[in-house]
């Protein structure tokens, strides 16, 4: 086993399966056999640490108040105020929940579980104004992130957040609402083209009565359920929701759909169909055991082949979490994390629509790319890149201009007070081995292979800190 080779493989594994790895940890792990490292990764991620930010009791009280007010026709001013107050509180807690999720990813000791949670967060895309519902769904996705896909699917389908978002609350006997039934097959399991409109209709009938009650618990309302006979994928019976899910899981297309999506998230935007098939078959034969599929993927040779290393564009969440985790960043005004997510195009808990974030190259446009390349210097170094290079007269002019701009801008906006974050440089530098060169640090921080240009750019660098700021401001840093 080539030590350098293993070092790079473990680094790749932790970048894809988690949110990066410290140099010290990487050195330690890469002394082990790669299969053992994968076992460690899975073992570390057994720990389930649900988010417990939202106060259950208070949320249930609010739900009951809201239900009461909703039923009334004319509200007194007092009642209107009460209603607005609840909305305000919910919005505030929703923002806190978003930050809690980001912090959980930054600080987690179970990186694969959090990464998988992020994957399911996009797969089962959902918006809810109610942070209690949103937290519950997020925790379902976390607890079952590496467990049985069936359990995950059933629990997601029964969560008030999803029942509300996909209108199953309105899906009643005699008056079916097909929204949930359609997305269940199109987006959650089989994928487009693997079912008929009739299957959707019959499935919708089977899910009638799946609802949540006033205090936000799942309830199967027998009296609203269509007990008639349904024909679903050629099977005839008096089906209920779970029967439908079972039939959907019997179809290998479901394992293929999930495996392809997992592959695109963890391996490559352009799936290699042979590899996807390998993964799907394994997933199907393991009765939809997610951890088993992940292990299969991380222990496959192709996971580490050059076309799959340093070639994926980081999602905004991966970018922000990775940077913050790497440099032990504290956000003194965590709200800025929400602003950054929003500007970069991935506001967690707020997917653009039920299909989730499209990902890949769609993350990048002129503004999001330029912003990404500025964030590291803003977060790590008060907006500065110490760059030693040749100055030509034109550069000097630009610098002079921006000095003027700086003076003028002093009055209104200072990035520091805006981003207001601190990197823990002593801690970061402490994880690096003694005598590490700027070039070696560059190789550690970037996933793509070094090229001549970057090597030249950092060749006369002296400091590790300034090198880190430069490297994280490069287009290459957008890849993992």
């Amino acid at each position: 086993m080539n030590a350098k080779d293993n070092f790079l493989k473990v680094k790749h594994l932790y970048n894809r399966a988690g949110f990066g790895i410290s140099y010290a940890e990487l050195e330690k792990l890469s002394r082990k056999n790669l299969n053992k490292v994968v076992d460690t990764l899975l073992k570390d991620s057994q720990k389930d640490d649900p988010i417990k930010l939202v106060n259950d009791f208070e949320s249930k009280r609010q739900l009951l108040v809201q239900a009461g007010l909703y039923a009334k026709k004319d509200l007194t001013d007092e009642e209107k105020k009460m209603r607005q107050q609840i909305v305000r509180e919910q919005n505030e807690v929703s923002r806190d929940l978003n930050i809690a999720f980001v912090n959980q990813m930054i600080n987690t000791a179970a990186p694969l579980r959090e990464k998988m949670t992020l994957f399911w967060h996009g797969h089962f895309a959902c918006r809810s104004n109610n942070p209690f519902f949103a937290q519950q769904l997020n925790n379902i996705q976390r607890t079952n992130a590496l467990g049985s896909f069936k359990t995950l699917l059933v629990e997601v389908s029964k969560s008030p957040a999803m029942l509300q978002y996909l209108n199953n609350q309105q899906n009643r006997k005699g008056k079916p609402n097909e929204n949930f039934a359609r997305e269940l097959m199109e987006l959650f399991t089989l994928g487009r083209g693997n079912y008929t409109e009739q299957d959707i209709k019959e499935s919708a009938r089977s899910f009638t009565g799946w609802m949540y009650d006033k205090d936000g618990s799942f309830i199967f309302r027998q009296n609203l359920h269509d007990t008639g006979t349904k024909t679903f994928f050629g099977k005839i019976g008096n089906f209920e929701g779970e029967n439908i899910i079972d039939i959907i899981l019997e179809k290998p297309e479901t394992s293929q759909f999930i495996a392809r999506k997992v592959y695109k998230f963890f391996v490559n935007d352009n799936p290699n169909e042979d590899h996807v098939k390998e993964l799907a078959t394994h997933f199907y034969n393991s009765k939809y055991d997610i951890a088993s599929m992940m292990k299969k993927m991380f222990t496959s040779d192709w996971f580490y082949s050059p076309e799959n290393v340093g070639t994926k564009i980081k999602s905004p969440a991966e970018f922000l979490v990775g940077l913050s985790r790497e440099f032990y960043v504290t956000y003194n005004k965590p709200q800025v994390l929400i602003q950054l997510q929003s500007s970069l195009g991935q506001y967690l808990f707020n997917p653009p629509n039920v299909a989730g974030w499209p990902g890949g190259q769609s993350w990048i446009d002129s503004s999001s790319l330029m912003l990404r390349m500025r964030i590291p210097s803003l977060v790590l170094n008060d907006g500065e890149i110490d760059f030693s290079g040749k100055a030509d007269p034109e550069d000097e002019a630009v610098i002079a201009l921006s000095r003027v701009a700086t003076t003028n801008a002093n009055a209104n906006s200072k990035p520091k007070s805006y981003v207001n974050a601190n990197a823990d440089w002593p801690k970061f530098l402490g994880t690096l081995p003694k005598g590490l060169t700027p070039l070696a640090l560059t190789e550690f921080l970037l996933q793509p292979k070094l090229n001549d240009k970057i090597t030249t750019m950092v060749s006369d660098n002296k400091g590790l800190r300034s090198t880190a700021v430069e490297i994280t401001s490069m287009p290459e840093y957008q890849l993992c």
Partner: protein
Amino acid sequence: MNRRNFLRNTGFVAAGSLFVPAFMKPLEAMALDELSLYKNLVVVQLSGGNDGLNTVIPFGNDIYYQKRKSIAIKPEEVIKLNDMQGLNPNMAALQEIHDQGWMTIINDVGYPNPDRSHFRSMDIWQTGSDSNQFLSTGWIGRYLDSNCQTCKFPYTAIEVDDSLSLAMKGQTKKGIALKDPGALYRNTNDPFFKAMLQNDKEHLDEDNLGYLYKTMIETSSSANYIQNTSKIYQSKSTYPNSGFANQLKTVSKFISSGLKTRVYYVSLSGFDTHVNQIGQQGNLLKQYGEGMAAFLKDLKTNNKLDDTLVITFSEFGRRVEQNASNGTDHGTANNMFVFGGKLKKQGIFNAAPNLSDLDTGDLKYQLDFRQVYGTILDKWLDVNNADILNKKFNTLDFI
């Protein structure tokens, strides 16, 4: 030599420019007569769901007054355009525009199975999808993708904002978002980024890294081009003091200085008026009307009005009946404003909304919004609308 530079105190302007003169070349190759025929589209988005019925008021219809007891605009306050409809008094600035024949109102624009969620409906309008279809590209983005004669440059579509809307994102090409060309130029003509781009030929291939560099290079050349072309232009017109008017002023500067951009995108938000609508919407409509009037007159002065078409949309209109909080809730079909110097039909394009034939309290749409897009794509941007909208839409006769 070690220098400290860059980024400090430059604010949060996204997007930028780097120095790549070679990319300026194609422009010089363009024939002069081609330049003089340059037609611009300006898309104005009113976010939050503007209440169309209190914007263009059907004062000739009693049902309007019955359904909106406390928020209806009194007939004597309406700026009458015909004997059925007129403008909200806060849009007085648009009367002159209307009288000049530079404005037309299209009533009841919508789509089948309307969605009342802001996000979803905005998605539908921006992507031009059906209501049960999820597209990840915008209609202007797909126009860029079509690589047509009129949309070759990376700066073909500019959004005057910090971030880029879905409408402007195609599969392979995307518009560019910028708020202030000068700040951008300074901001990103940074020695570090310049060094990154120098001699970077090896990355110009199809993979993701190539895509990142390509985006960076295009941003750079666009920002340089935009700054260099527009910096000398000084508008003589005065604009009202509002963020929205400022966006329009920037657009006017770009158009008047001869930028080869085809599509501009600006937005004004705050139209979600569930509570105490009169004041809030009135204030926004005032900004809209005054900003738009100043913009159109400025274009006229610069002889650009005939080459410019402006459309305004919102993700949905609001319910016909007001709610108990002196506001309105999410609805469906809505009116669209169209402005320009060369309108075929001026004033009011089609029949006023039928307030007695509603779909569970909401207006039924007369025209699909993609017919409006289709008309613009076919007749103004010179592409076949079926290529962009995935099916052919019948065009309308407003241009």
